[in-house]
C-alpha cells in the first residue's frame, strides 16, 4: 500500500510518500502506527504522540481502530490548520 505523510509528520519521517508492505498481523491504523514506529528513529519521532496523528484511508478521515485491509492509500498528518 502507498503511504503519504504531510506537514510535520512528513518532515519527521523524512519523505512525502512510500510504498510499504506491513506483515499480515498489522490490521488496524493503530497497529500500523506502532509497526512504523518500530522501523526507525525517524518514524518513532513522527509518531511519538500517536493520539495527535490524524489518518485518512483513500482520501477519507478514519479513526485509529479502522482496519487497513484493502486500503490503496493511507495518509498520516497533524490536526488540520487550513482556512
Amino acid at each position, binding site marked *: 500500500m502507498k503511504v*503519504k505523510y*504531510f*506537514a*510535520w509528520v512528513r518532515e519527521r519521517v523524512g519523505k512525502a510518500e512510500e510504498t510499504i508492505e506491513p506483515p499480515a498481523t498489522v490490521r488496524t491504523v493503530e497497529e500500523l502506527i506502532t509497526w512504523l514506529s518500530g522501523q526507525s528513529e525517524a518514524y518513532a519521532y513522527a509518531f511519538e504522540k500517536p493520539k495527535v496523528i490524524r489518518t*485518512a484511508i483513500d*482520501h*477519507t*478521515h478514519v479513526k485509529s481502530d479502522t482496519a487497513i485491509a484493502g486500503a490503496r492509500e493511507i*495518509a498520516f*498528518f*497533524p*490536526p*488540520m*490548520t*487550513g*482556512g
Partner: protein
Amino acid sequence: MTSSVTNCPVAIRIQEDDFDIAREIAVLTKSRTDIGAVVTFSGICRADEDSSKIAALTLEHYPGMAEEEIKRHVDEALSRWPLNGVTVIHRVGRFMPGQNIVLVLTASQHRRAAFEAAEFLMDYLKTSAPFWKKEESATGTGWVEAHARDDDAAARWTRS
C-alpha cells in the same frame, strides 16, 4: 471541480493564484434572478498570531483529498440549506500578511441560509479539510497548532 444540482452550481478550486472576489460573485450570479443573497467570506493572512509577528505563511495541502473533503461538506451544506450556488477557493503556497488565502461564497434566495452555510463551510474547512499552515517569524519557522476553539466551532453543527 464543478457540478450543478437543481440550478445550484458548485465550484471548488485549490490554486496558487489569487482570486478576485467581485469576479467570483459575478460568475455565481450571472443571468440569475432567483438569487436574493450572496454571502462572501474571505480569509486573509494576518501579521499577528497571538503575540508573535508573522512574516509569511506557507499553506500545504493533500491534493485529491482536499477537494473531496470540501465537496463532502458542500454536499452536506446543500442538504441542510436551500442554496442556489456555492464557490470555495483555497489557495496554497507562500503568503505575506494581507494576501488572500480562502474564499467561500454561498448564494440563496434569502440571507439566513447563505449566512449559515458560509459559516458551516468555514468551520469545517478549518478542522477537516487537509491543509496545514507553517508560520515564518523573526524567531524562526513552525507549524501552526490546531485550536480547540475551531473544533468547538465545527462541533456545534453536528446533528444528533
